[in-house]
């Protein structure tokens, strides 16, 4: 374990001094004294070691041993004081008895809380950086969380965890710390037990002890070029400090329902009628595709012959109740020499969509051993294995341009029989005039699933040695290996027409369907050599220093192949097919990073705090000369409540107060390709004599000046603890400037046809924001309760841009302009739906008819064109404001908790393939809304413009612009911990059952599927609402 616990040497020393002191005191004890002994335990009955026991108004004192035992001499009538850093202080009056067993309640907020920071741990009170922490307790593990990223939502101000889909296997939340730091990869660095580059969504939630979120420069700068977007440190459990081996068994079972779905129309005759209305806008009845006879026939026969005249409710066919099961077993324990943690977990998810399944096995083993008094070795191993089945990349959709069928869900007409079990045939279109290319999603999901298995192994070995007091040298070596295998081997199927009893022309999956395999594997190594030095000098000076040398190396490889003409459609391996038609591809890439890291912490008089950090990173992505980036930071803190002159003023009200300021730099090279800065020729082959001939072209113009993208972060924080820290307040202000953003330059279009634009350091972007956390914790008798409120506000603003920016300019699909958020809203304004011709004449001519949206002529030039769009200070992708209310209460064994989260400040257009009023004239999956909402002469108050109207009805106007704010009851949990005595004989130390509901309630004005979803707006995989039951057993 790479943490540098400079407290390690300190506490025992303190303890020894106390012991010596108490021995001395006992020498001078008087005759009235008697020996009092007893056991100190916590509320759960666990013995507490190291509790200071002292006699009030006397110098006598001792502390408890590992079994919680103490023994002290005290006079009758005197008062014993039991105190420890982590517990509430308690007093006992010495009476006639000799044996006093004391129960200490855990402190609601402790000054000695230790926070995991980069390459070490620090006392929370001495922290000068902005760090948010989450302790993963039974309340979190009791939730039906598929992964920890989803579980972080709302828990740390400034950390946005956005859930865009409920798809099993892809339901990790997108994490973003303090707004969009860069248009490049803006995800925080994930570090698990000191090892970066771990997939957060594959870490077993039950293995996690704490999560630290490093938000500012001083806390993240030891991660230098990797920490520009903040860092999330995950620490897994160990057996440290545990004397007895503790087993934990947990089980969590959840039932999942969609928070909201799309109501596709199951009434095919009505859908065809809607298509007729669509066609009627510009087509004479005789020329329309769908005839009245067809519709009448379907209406009549649909009631008696569902096979030949189906009215398929696709949403019911392709959806199901989701399920999630999560089982874990772990054991942790330790002794003087060693300690361990071992766990195994199994998670199984059955998504809301049929054939969308994911299961994952996790194992972890942490072990360390003290080989000498001053030397430790240890290993950490974790591995996971997952199996994943899905139909399309987003479940129901696939946005990739290469998948021309990616949005076919809009063609899932109700007039198709999904499947006939009697004959084993999949239905196709049957209605006269219907487009044979209509879509049978059931067929696709059943016959053409994508399958993926992935294995990861992550092993670390470390060794540390303290040759002299205060100095520790350590060496860590880590290897992450992954292997991923994807295959598809679709089952042939052809559309069947049950009316004519013949196959239709659509071949869903051809008889020669290919088997295709893709294998990805790779490894990453990390070597850290570390030196820590810690010393006290003078009386009040505490200094520690850290130096790390680190090397990281990535190597990734892929190989894929496919063959047509399988011997049998049941086969899914390459050799199960003829080699007539084959394809394959493969390649590899590597990257190296060399880093020097340093940190100095200095504390004076326990109240003046100073920290300096730096990191130098050298990356193989840059050319020599531009390789190294230097990222320093500095921070100061002042615990003003420790000042004697302020104590009288603050009195008992303000128990803790700290002001901290930090400033520093971070870097980023994620926008640069591994070999981007090297000249290469690329293949562009030609055909000579019927076969390929080598063709090579030069497609690169290099920018040899390209260097690191850098981020400068200023952070001002204030921490206050009131009323003995029952109420804590933490406020932060930050100003984060990302400079030299790495993005493609603009080339003349005389060049862009041949050359890819070289990256350049294009501009800068600033995120300014505030974060506030209020925490109230208290206990009244046996009633414990707490309320935590946090909120954050962040504004992203583009400050400079070296390339030409014109009106409405976009960069990779994002609107970009100075002093605007990235991907700001750029929209037409409208005057609503034209009701009459008079409305049309009152507005600028724009080819509208009654029922069409009337756009405003903003520049008044008498015509509507792109120049009439206006910009709004709102991002289409992310909110500015997030807030959370987290409350819990417990009484005896019963506990209840709930988590509300909300956001505001995001606006986006609600336009997708399913609410398109200008839908296709055939094979369109009409929704109920498209029947009821569009404007007609009879439905003048219709919410939507007329169907088949002006193409401008689906333009980006504020008609379709929605406020994406929402307030959501993210989680509510009710738990019951069975009282100890009930199971004590069985050896059970903890037994809790809890029921939770996720995403129970959402309050929003957004008209679409879910306001939390971001990204492709045709993605209709709902977010899940889950009802779960957790059983947590410890023995």
């Amino acid at each position, binding site marked *: 374990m790479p943490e540098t616990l400079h407290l390690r040497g300190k506490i025992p020393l303190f303890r020894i001094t106390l012991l010596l002191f108490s021995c001395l005191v006992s020498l001078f004890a008087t005759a009235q004294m008697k020996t009092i002994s007893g056991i100190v335990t916590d509320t759960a009955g666990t013995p507490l070691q190291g509790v200071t026991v002292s006699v009030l108004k006397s110098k006598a004192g001792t502390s408890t041993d590992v079994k919680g035992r103490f023994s002290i001499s005290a006079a009758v009538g005197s008062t014993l004081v039991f105190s420890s850093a982590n517990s509430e202080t308690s007093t006992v009056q010495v009476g006639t008895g000799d044996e006093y067993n004391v129960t200490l309640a855990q402190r609601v907020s402790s000054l000695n809380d230790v926070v995991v920071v980069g390459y070490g741990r620090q006392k929370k009170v001495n922290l000068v950086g902005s760090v948010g922490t989450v302790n993963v307790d039974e309340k979190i593990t009791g939730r039906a969380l598929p992964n920890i990223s989803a579980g972080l939502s709302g828990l740390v101000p400034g950390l946005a965890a956005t859930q865009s889909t409920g798809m099993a296997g892809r339901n990790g939340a997108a994490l973003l710390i303090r707004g969009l730091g860069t248009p490049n990869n803006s995800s925080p660095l994930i570090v698990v037990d000191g090892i970066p580059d771990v997939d957060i969504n594959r870490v077993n939630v039950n293995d996690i002890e704490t999560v630290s979120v490093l938000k500012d420069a001083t806390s993240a700068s030891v991660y230098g070029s990797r920490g520009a977007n903040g860092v999330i440190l995950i620490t897994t459990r160990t057996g440290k400090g545990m004397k007895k081996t503790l087993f934990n068994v947990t089980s969590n079972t959840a039932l999942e329902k969609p928070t909201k779905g799309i109501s596709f129309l199951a009434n095919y005759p009505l859908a065809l009628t809607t298509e007729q209305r669509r066609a009627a806008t510009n087509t004479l009845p*005789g*020329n329309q595709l769908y005839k009245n006879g067809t519709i009448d026939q379907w209406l009549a026969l649909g009631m008696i012959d569902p096979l030949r005249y189906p009215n398929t409710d696709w949403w019911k066919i392709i959806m199901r109740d989701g399920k999630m099961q999560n089982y874990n077993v772990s054991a942790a324990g330790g002794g003087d020499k060693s300690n361990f943690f071992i766990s195994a977990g199994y998670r199984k998810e059955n998504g809301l969509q049929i054939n969308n399944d994911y299961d994952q096995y996790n194992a972890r083993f942490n072990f360390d051993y003290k080989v000498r008094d001053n030397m430790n070795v240890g290993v950490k191993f974790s591995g996971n294995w997952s199996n994943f089945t899905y139909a399309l990349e987003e479940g129901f959709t696939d946005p990739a*341009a*290469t998948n021309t069928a990616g949005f076919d869900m809009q063609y899932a007409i109700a007039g198709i029989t999904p499947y006939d079990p009697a004959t084993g045939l999949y239905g196709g279109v049957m209605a006269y005039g*219907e*487009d*044979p*290319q209509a879509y049978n999603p059931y067929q696709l999901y059943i016959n053409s699933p994508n399958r993926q298995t992935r294995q990861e192994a992550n092993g670390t070995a470390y060794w540390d040695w303290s*040759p*002299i007091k205060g100095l520790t040298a350590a060496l860590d070596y880590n290897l992450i290996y992954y292997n991923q295998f994807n295959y598809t081997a679709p089952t042939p199927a052809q559309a069947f027409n049950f009316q004519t009893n*013949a196959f*239709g*022309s659509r071949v869903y999956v051809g008889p020669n369907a290919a088997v295709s395999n893709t294998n990805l594997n790779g490894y990453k190594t990390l070597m850290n*050599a570390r*030196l820590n*030095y810690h010393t006290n000098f003078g009386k009040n000076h505490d200094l520690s220093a850290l130096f790390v*040398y680190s090397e990281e190396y990535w190597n990734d490889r892929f190989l894929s192949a496919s063959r047509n003409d399988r011997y049998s459609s049941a086969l899914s391996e390459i050799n199960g097919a003829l080699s007539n*038609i084959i394809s394959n591809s493969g*390649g*590899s*890439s*590597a990257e*190296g990073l*060399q880093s020097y890291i340093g940190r100095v912490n200095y504390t004076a008089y326990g109240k003046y705090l100073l920290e300096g950090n730096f990191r130098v990173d050298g*990356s*193989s992505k840059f050319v020599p000369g531009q390789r190294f980036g230097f990222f320093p930071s500095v921070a100061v803190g002042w615990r003003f409540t420790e000042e004697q002159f302020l104590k009288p003023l603050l009195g008992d009200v303000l128990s803790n107060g700290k002001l901290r300021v930090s400033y520093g730099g971070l870097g980023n090279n994620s926008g640069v390709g*591994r*070999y981007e800065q*090297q*000249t*290469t*020729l690329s*293949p*562009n*082959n*030609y*055909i*000579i*004599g*019927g*076969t*390929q*001939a*080598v*063709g*090579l*072209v030069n497609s690169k*113009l290099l920018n040899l000046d390209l260097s690191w993208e850098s981020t400068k972060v200023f952070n001002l924080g204030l921490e206050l603890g009131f009323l003995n820290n029952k109420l804590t307040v933490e406020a932060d202000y930050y100003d984060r400037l990302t400079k030299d953003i790495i993005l493609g*330059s603009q080339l*003349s*279009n*005389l*060049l*862009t*046809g*041949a*050359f890819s634009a070289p990256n350049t350091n294009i501009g800068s972007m600033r995120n300014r924001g505030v974060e506030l956390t209020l925490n109230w914790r208290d206990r009244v008798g046996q009633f414990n309760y707490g309320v935590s409120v946090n909120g954050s506000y962040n504004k992203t603003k583009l400050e400079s841009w070296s390339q*030409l920016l*014109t009106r409405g300019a976009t960069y990779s699909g994002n609107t970009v302009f100075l002093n605007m958020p990235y991907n700001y809203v750029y929209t037409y304004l409208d005057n609503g739906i034209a009701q009459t011709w008079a409305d049309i004449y009152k507005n600028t001519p724009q080819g509208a008819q009654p029922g069409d949206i009337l756009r405003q002529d903003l520049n008044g030039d008498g015509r509507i064109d792109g120049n009439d769009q206006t910009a709004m200070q709102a991002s289409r992708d992310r909110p500015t404001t997030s807030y959370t209310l987290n409350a819990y209460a417990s009484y005896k064994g019963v506990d209840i908790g709930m988590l509300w989260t909300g956001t505001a400040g995001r606006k986006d257009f609600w336009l997708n393939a399913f609410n398109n009023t200008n839908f296709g004239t055939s*094979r369109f999956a009409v929704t109920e809304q498209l029947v009821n909402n569009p404007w007609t002469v009879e439905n003048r108050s219709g919410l939507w413009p007329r169907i088949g109207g002006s193409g401008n009805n689906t333009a980006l106007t504020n008609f379709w612009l929605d406020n994406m704010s929402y307030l959501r009851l993210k989680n509510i949990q009710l738990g019951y911990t069975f009282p100890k005595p009930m199971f004590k004989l069985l050896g059970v130390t903890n037994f809790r059952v809890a029921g939770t509901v996720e995403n129970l309630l959402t309050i929003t004005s957004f008209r679409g599927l879910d306001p939390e979803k971001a990204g492709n707006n045709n993605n209709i995989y709902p977010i899940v609402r889950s009802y779960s039951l957790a059983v947590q057993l410890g023995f």
Partner: protein
Amino acid sequence: MKQTKYISPIFIVAVLAALMLMPTSCRKNLLDQTPTTDPSPTTFWLTETDATAGMMGLYAATRPCFDRDYYMDGQSEYFRCRGTSITGGNLRLGDAYNGGNFNPTGYGASFDNMYRYLYGAVDRANYVIENVTKMQAKGGALATSTVLQVIQGEARLLRGMAYFKLISMWGDVPYYTISPTSNDQVASLSRTPLAQVKDSILSDFTYAFNNLPLKANAVGRASKPAALALRGKLQLYWGSWNKNGWPELEGFTPSATAATAAFTAAAADFKSVISDYGLTLYLNGDPGQIDGLGKNDILPNYYTLFTPKANGNPEMLMVFTHGGTGTSQGEELMRDFSGRSHEGSQCWVSPRYEIADRYQSTITGDFVTPLVPMNPTVPASGNVARTALNSAVNPNSYLNRDYRMKSSIQWDFEQSVGMASLASTGNVPFIYQTWAGTVNIAGVNYITYNTDGCNSGYVFRKFLRNYAGQGRSDGDFAWPIVRLADVYLMYAEATNEVSGPLADAIALVNSIRRRGNLPALAATKTADKQTFFNAIEQERIIELFGEGQRSFDLRRWRAIERVWGLPGSAGLWRIDTWGANQQRYYQNTSDLEYKQNYIFRIPPGERDRNPNLTQNIPWR
């Protein structure tokens, strides 16, 4: 821990720190990672093989600027392009045409991608020319290498082709021959006048002509007659612009003298192509055999010419090759030209109804009585549309037509080989508006041609393979840039402009007609310059249908008004065989839009960055 007493902590720190600061990394060359699949240019451009690979790269970069020109026919009156199969961002899969508007009007602002990729081809050509010139300058065997000499010719030819297309769309364009290494070298170029660019292209074509072999080294590479044909075509266009004017192009003053000189020079080049290289039309221009109505076992030679079976035939003067399955270089003609019954093709393009009457009678050699569109479904009983005389849905109305009609288009009950999963599914009869319906023809059940892409009542046969085995994106047809039949017709046009109908020109037009099994032109059709021009235009429409020539012809002839009516007029409907109106074009269309159809818009995004770049008049 005794020893530690004797070791200064500072010493330990110093030693450990020094170890950690070692200048070299533990892993060898940690920061020097080399690309794994792409070669480095530092060891390139040394041998003839290198130069050939560079040239092949240039061919492959120029090909996609031309090989989907059939979409461009959508800007004419007989060809509908309802969409495209382009994969955005992928040059090989049509990105040059991406965003293009392929309708008869309103298209001039949508070819920014074509503009940039044509310059991409110019850049690639300049890169090859510069590096091969450097190789030749090294002296020795390289200086006299014929391989390098041919490559120089080919690169000049391709550069000329790119610039030729640029000027024919945009008029004046920036002209440069350097191989840029930074944006600054080209970012502020202004437009070079048309005449000057034309002269530069001409000199490139001449250079190519002088350096290329008599016969291409391989199918898909260039030869002398190709350079000559293209030089003739450039001069024909130059002549047309001078004769007909190009008022939308600022600074261009047409000159009748220049026109005549250009037509004369063009005719000379074409004449040389026709007579000096022993080239003949495919299968000597024989019409071949034709099957009965509704049958597709024996198809005329003209049909075969546009299938991969005819790849490498001498009529194709200059082609860009494509590769079949597994080469990642397939063409998508089938995907665009046919429907779902053919490997799930998408029927993005189809013949418009109006083309049918353009196909003449093999008996009279002249136009037939116009077809009568009839709806075969109403009234429900007593419908006679399938049997009525001249009914567009009566197959018998298509008897005895130009062989190129059956070769190019399919009408109701015409059949083609259906295919799925690379295997034949048997014949599919095309019956408009039936989309994979079942039909019994002469006692045999068929599933009809499935497409939602056609709104005219006709689908293409031209470019559609009549055998299975290749996917819709895996075609290996070599796309013609210029072919002998076109040269014949261009020769006739050029000479007609200079001296009216000449006997050898009439004979060449008749030889084109012969492959449609049409009789020679009647004397009335060659009576004077105008009637002969009409006959040439008729042949160009039929012979070059779907080859991307028609819209360029309409513009250089300034014929848009003649075809569609004058500005402000009612325009023309395009209809289908059932008589339903489909689309109307040029209804109440402004004078400005006509002008915008004659010259394309210089990409405004580029003008934002480059103040020296002027805009064409109608786009200001």
